[in-house]
Structure formats: C-alpha cells, structure tokens
C-alpha cells in the first residue's frame, strides 16, 4: 500500500510543500493575518461618539457643556479657523454657531453629520425645555452574522482555496517541467493520471488544515460561528478545492517557465479577488456586470460558503452556485488533460 505510486506521489507533493516555509506562510499564515487585521479595523462598534464643535461666541461653553453631557456626543469650543479646518477634514461632524437663531453648519451628504444634526438638535431643544409627547423605550438587538468579520471569513476561505489550488498545483507542475523532472517521470512506467491525482489528493489533505485553521481562528478570535451544517461546509470546501486544483492544472498545462506561469496565474486570480466579493459585496458593481461576476467560480464558492456559514442554508438549496463551481472544475480538468505538456 505504502509503495503504491499514488501514495508516493502524494507524499512527495506534501513533503515538498511543507518543507517550504514561504508556502506555509502564504497558505496558512497570510489569511489569518489578513482576517485579524481586517477584523480589527472593521469591528462593529457602531458609530461611537460623534465629535461636534461649538464656535466661540456668547454662551459657547454652556452649549458645549450641554452637548458633552449627552452620551452620544463629544463637544468642544473651537475658534473659527480651527473649526473650519476640523469640519472640512471630518474631525468634527457638525459645528454649532451660538446666537439667535442657533446655526448648525454641516455637510448634509455625510451620514455622520446628519446623525449629529439630529442628536445635537435633540439635546439642545430638550435642554431648553422641550417635552416629548410620547414615551418610548429602546430595544437593542445584535443580528448574528451581520458584522464585517462574519462576511469576511467565508470570503477569505474562498480566496484561500483559490490561491492554494492555483499556486500549489501550478507552480509545482511548471517547476517539475522546467527541471525536466516531468520528462524523467515520463521515462518510467508511471501513469499520467497518477501524477495528476497525486496533486489533487495532496490538495485535499492540506485543505483540511487550511479550513480548520481559518474557521477555528475566526471562531476563537471573533466568535464567527458556522450556522449551517459542518458537513455541508466540508462538502463545499472539497468541491472548491477540486475545482481550483483543476483550474491550477489548466493554468500550468503548457507553461515552460515559472515566470510564464506567474503571469497566467495573476491573470486568472486578480479579477476574482476584486470581483468575487471576497472583501466587499459584489452587489456594489453595476447591475449589468452581475451575471458575469456570478459566473466566476470564486463568486459562486463565496456565495455558497456564506450561505452555509452565515445563513445556515442547507446544501440542497445551493445547487446553482455549486453547479457553477463544479462546471469550472470539470471543464478545466478535461481541457488541462488534453493540452498538457508532459515534457
């Protein structure tokens, strides 16, 4: 069993991979670093305290004290020149100019400024004796899976599957071709299918580590859970890894040099990094582009991963995106086999 060529080819692939520290970092470390940094930068703390300014003038400190006493607001008295600069650079959301009438100076296209307008006005009117006719009570809820990190982790998982599939398979195939190792294998009775299957098997074994590392990190660090079935998630990642390994073989099927294949890889991956909704929702692209974007394998995979991880969707409801992923994989693999340069 241990002497089966498929076992040995898979072992060789894995050894070559884990003995390359850079590869380990790019596959396992980098997505975690990225998730950590982006998770910190975009944590959902709400709008927080809004900064407003009070222009120097009669009664300015009283106004500032009233506003500052409101929990949602932070206020300070500013001279005219400073106030103008801070308003322009967004360091204060709104400037109150004392007098009669009171003047609110703000940019109405900025969400924060409009929010400040409401809060400031509310605070000042109440301070001058306005009474509210209706009694209200706030009820705050946090919707599970609505944070940026919840959106990000499945996207990074998808991106990671794409990257390790294309890099992992592509580079090693072209390197073997460039070093004439592929030709040397052709001089043995080795079956070509075993060689290609060895890549795919080793990808599946590493996949397990990749997924557990990233999902586990999201869970421990940011409490990102998997709302759907874990088996469903496993099935989707396996399908994704197979499809991208196929794409990697296609990218590497003809190239003779590492430089040549690097260009091809970027050509394939770069559009998907931007378009496929890894870091932000692809709904931001114009409507005319959406059908094209949705036909990309990474988009379909990200959609399926998010559906399972965030919404808890069952696999059966994900036939469409999974079919897109599978079709890309199957077609790439078949073409790769046909045009593969073996020496």
């Amino acid at each position: 069993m241990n002497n089966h060529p498929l076992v040995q080819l898979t072992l060789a692939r894995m050894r070559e991979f884990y003995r390359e520290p850079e590869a380990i970092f790019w596959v396992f470390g980098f997505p975690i670093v990225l998730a950590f940094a982006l998770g910190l930068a975009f944590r959902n703390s709400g709008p927080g305290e809004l900064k407003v300014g009070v222009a120097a003038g009669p009664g300015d400190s009283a106004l500032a004290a009233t506003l500052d006493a409101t929990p949602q607001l932070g206020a300070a008295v500013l001279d005219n020149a400073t106030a103008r600069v801070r308003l322009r650079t967004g360091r204060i959301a709104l400037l109150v100019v004392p007098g009669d009438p009171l003047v609110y100076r703000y940019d109405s296209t900025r969400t924060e400024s409009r929010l400040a307008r409401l809060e400031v006005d509310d605070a000042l009117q109440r301070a001058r004796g306005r009474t509210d006719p209706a009694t209200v009570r706030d009820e705050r809820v946090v919707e599970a899976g609505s944070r940026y990190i919840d959106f990000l982790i499945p996207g990074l998982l998808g991106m990671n599957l794409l990257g390790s599939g294309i890099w992992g398979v592509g580079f090693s195939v072209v390197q073997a071709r460039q070093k004439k190792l592929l030709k040397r294998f052709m001089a043995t009775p080795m079956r070509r299918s075993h060689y290609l299957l060895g890549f795919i098997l080793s990808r599946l074994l590493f996949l397990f580590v990749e997924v557990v590392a990233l999902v586990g990190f999201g869970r421990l660090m940011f409490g990102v859970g998997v709302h759907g079935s874990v088996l469903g998630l496993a099935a989707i990642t396996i399908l994704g890894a197979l499809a991208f390994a196929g794409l990697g073989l296609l990218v590497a099927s003809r190239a003779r040099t590492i430089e040549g294949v690097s260009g091809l890889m970027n050509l394939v991956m770069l559009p998907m990094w931007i378009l496929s909704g890894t870091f932000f929702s692809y709904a931001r692209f114009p409507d005319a582009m959406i059908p094209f974007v949705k036909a990309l394998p990474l988009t379909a995979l990200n959609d399926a991963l998010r559906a399972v991880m965030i919404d808890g969707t069952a696999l059966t409801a994900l036939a469409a995106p999974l079919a897109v992923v599978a079709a890309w994989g199957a077609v790439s693999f078949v073409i790769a086999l046909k045009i593969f340069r073996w020496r």
Partner: protein
Amino acid sequence: MAGLDLTIAAGECFGLLGPNGAGKTTTIEILEGLTPPDGGAVEVLGTAWREGAEGRALRERLGIQLQETQLADKLTVAETLQLFRSFYRRSHTVDEVLALVELEEKRGARVSTLSGGQKQRLSVACALVSRPELLFLDEPTTGLDPQSRRQLWEIIRRFKDAGGTVLLTTHYMEEAERLCDRVAIMDHGKVIALGSPDELIASLGADQIVEFALADGTTPAGLDALPGVKRVRPGPDRIALTVAQVHRAVPALLGLVERQGAELSLLATHHATLEDVFVALTGRQLRDE
C-alpha cells in the same frame, strides 16, 4: 539526424561519442521513447515504442538517466528513491540501490545538500532502482570531478558485469575507451565511425602520436617523408604526427629539426586515443576549444 543504423547487442556497453550538438541526446531520447523519430524503425528489447500499456511494460525493463533532470531539492535521497521505486512492479529496495551507488551515508540527506557527484549517483540510482535489463545514461559524468567520474565508471562496470546492457553518451573519449565495448562516433547527426575502441584506434594505421612545436612557431618541410609517419596534422599551437614506430620517427624528427637549425619548444608522445580518431575523421578536436 540522418541515416542512423545501429544495433546494440544484449550485455554490451555501447557508447555514443561526439562533440556537443552532434545529436547524441536526440538519438538516445528516440531510443528511450521520449522523442518520436521523424522516420525509420526503432526497436528496444525487441519491441517498438507504443503508447499505453505496452509502452509501460517496456519501461518496466529500462533504467533511464536524463542529462538535464534536476531531482526535487526538498526530498531526501531515500524519499526520492522510494518514489521512483513505486513506479515499478519489480524493483530494488531503497537500501539495495543505495548500496549499488554507495550513497548509504546520504540516505536521509536532502537532495539540495548533495555534491554534484552525489546528485549524479542518485540520478543513476533512480535509473537502477527498476532492476533494468537496459540502462540508458546521457552524459553521466559531464561536469564531474575525476574522483566522482571514476566512482560512476565503477557503478556502470558493476552493472555490466552483472549482465546488464548499457547505452551511454559521452564527449569524453577516455570514458568511452574505458567503459565501452563498442563506440559510435557521431558528428553533425551522423555516425562517422563504428567499432570497438581498439578497432577504431587501429584504423588510424598507427598507434602512436608524436606532438611537437618549434620555438619560432614554423612548420618544417619534409615531415611526411620521415620514417614511420602516417599522417601530419598541424594544429594551432603544435604539430601532431601519427606514427607507427616511435623509436624510428622521433630520432628522424630530431635530425630534421637540427638540420634546419631550429629549436624545439615542445616534444611529447602518447598512445593514440579515440580523440585522435575523431580528429583524423573530422579535422576538429572533440571537445570545444
């Protein structure tokens, strides 16, 4: 490649000898079934090359070492052999083949840490692991130091002594003379001479070479009339005479030089080699100079 007609017998060591670009690698790769020939028939161990199961069955019986292959740097010696071994139904164990090429102490070393000679022995080990009937070696000792070269010769000789057939290419005439039962000398894609090293050297009609140069760099007249001289070949820095009897030719040469009032700056004699055969056939040196 033009009109190559070769038959290699079982149990012999056959050498393709020629300068770089003579077509040695193309020839051996056609025989290995890696390059399809433009025409003609190729039979290896009595079978023609075919795709699929028949081709694989033939490969089971061959051991092939390619000139440019770089084995995976990150794998150890034993892992590399284990991998190659897995492709064959019948093979040496890793320990057996390590002993054949004397790399036992490098068993656990990464390929990247091996010296040039050790890498080459590993490459030959990957070819020997299949217990081949026929071993193909393409420039097995090119670029190696003399000691590594002798080690490889020893490995090849042991394989041959155990009944194996070897086809090797080389541009070292010394290697061909020492290892090969028969040699085909190639130039510009053609075989220009074929025979055992002794036969080819004998074809010169004389088995000694006398090389000399005059201090003033001129070539004296009347050299071909000297007793025992078969051929005169002026070179860039010396003149080479192919002679049958050194004991007669050298005193005559010295007399000629003295009569002309010239002075020798070099005089040397050696037994004729395949190099001299190549030079006699092509007028060029075997190695690029």
